[in-house]
């Protein structure tokens, strides 16, 4: 490896007085002083959340308004801090989505336990639970920090995905039944 010897220039008289450096430094700080601040006035101004941000886990509906969760409880099992608690429930015979196997009766995510790891989203076979742009969870009591089912759907909104797996499954089942007859 070639060795490059850097010539050290002796300091000039002005540099030895240290004053030009101080004046240059004062100019730098003055330039910074007249610049607009880079900080955000947080509660009034909110940061722009990039797409794909993984904040608070939420539940989503499909474009027809059907809740996607089928309460398979995989997220509940995979959740490392055990933040999720699901009570599975049956769907009424009369409901028009009764071809879906199940739906959650209760779905609570304790945000005091959640570590935002995203494993629930990864494990969900129905793409029903998503970590979304909500980044600020606050509350005055422990109860407030538990997101129940209504809150989760309110935060989650709709997933614009027109795959409709359960409808296709129902149509296929009906077709096979017709063929048998």
């Amino acid at each position, binding site marked *: 490896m070639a060795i490059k010897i850097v010539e050290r220039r002796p300091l000039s008289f002005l540099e030895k007085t240290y004053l030009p450096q101080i004046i240059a*430094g004062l100019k730098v*700080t003055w330039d910074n002083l007249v610049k607009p*601040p880079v900080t955000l006035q947080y509660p009034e101004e909110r940061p722009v959340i990039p797409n794909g941000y993984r904040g608070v886990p939420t539940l989503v509906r499909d474009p027809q308004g059907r809740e996607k969760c089928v309460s398979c409880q995989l997220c509940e099992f995979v959740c490392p801090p055990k933040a999720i608690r699901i009570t599975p429930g049956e769907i009424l015979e009369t409901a028009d989505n009764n071809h879906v196997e199940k739906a959650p009766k209760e779905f609570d995510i304790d945000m005091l336990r959640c570590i935002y790891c995203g494993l629930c989203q990864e494990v969900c076979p129905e793409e029903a639970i998503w970590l979304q742009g909500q980044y600020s969870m606050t509350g005055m009591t422990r109860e407030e920090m538990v997101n129940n089912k209504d809150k989760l759907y309110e935060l989650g909104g709709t997933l614009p995905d027109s795959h409709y797996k359960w409808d296709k499954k129902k149509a296929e089942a009906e077709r096979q039944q017709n063929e048998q007859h």
Partner: protein
Amino acid sequence: MIEQILNDLILSPAWYYTAARGLTVIVILMSIAAYSVLLERKASAWIQGRVGPNRTNHPLIAWIPFFGNVLMRGGFIQPAADGLKFLFKEDALPGHVRKTFYVLAPCLALAPVLISLVMLPFGELPNGKIITLCPGADIGVLFMFAISSLGVYGIALAGWAANSKYPFLGAIRGSAQLISYELAMGLSVLTVFLATATPDQNNALSLVSMVKAQTGAWNILYHPVAALIFLICIFAEANRHPFDMPESETDLVGGFHTEYGAFKFGLFFVAEYSHMIIGSSLFILMFLGGWHVLPWLPNVGTGIFATLIGLGSFFFKLAAFLFFFVWVRWTVPRFRYDQVMRIGWRVLLPIAVVNLLVYFIWYALQG
């Protein structure tokens, strides 16, 4: 005799008049000190790309339609909140301190600054009288140097009474630094007095006559070297960056006031900022023409307006100077202790001596 003293103290209207004047000046000094803390916080925020204190508000002020919001954004209520916080915090007394001296130290830090305020002239009335607490004094600058240097006793005592290592180191550094820079400061001022005082003058050391000698060019134009040395020395005397050896919060955890809290810490705080104010006022009076508006333009307007404009220009210069203190603080890193000593003894002192000799010979040759 006691009757006489009581009579003088309680019944004499002159006493009340003096007390009122003293209180006014102290109140002005305290509010300038409080608002220079705000200036410090705001300017540091601006330099670092932040906004600074802009949330503190009071319902009475928030009620004012537009102005209230401006005041809140500017942080103008912040000093009151800070002061109240110092007042209402628990005044803890650590178990390991020497209690008498521990309590005495903050008072000793603040008292000399308030005393030296006596000699400070602010402006000139239309009838030629000087706005100051002690109009007849002819030893102004000597008195101020003598008294304001006593402030270091507060620091030394605090460091010793706190009975712990960091404050002790801070106090040692503070006193060494003060001794080192006092010399160069005195010599640089001597150069200026050599120039302005005439041999048969009675009040040669008076700050008023110093200001009156600057109706033409200001002293900073004739004595740039002395002004620079004095400037560096007041930074060192006020324990401001880059010379804040006694405090140096990064290596001494706050230095001499490490063990202090609540109101006693507040007193140290006020003392530091008052020191800055006194130092800047001295610089303004000696080098920047005091209450004169511009070089070769001593006053604008006539009568009471001239007085007001003079007062305004004095306080404007003071504010600019305080901003300069803050500006330098957020620009220059702290010197190492040995560098401080080297600058004091091996750079500033020789330059001050040579400067004095050169001016001395020059004036001697001039006759």
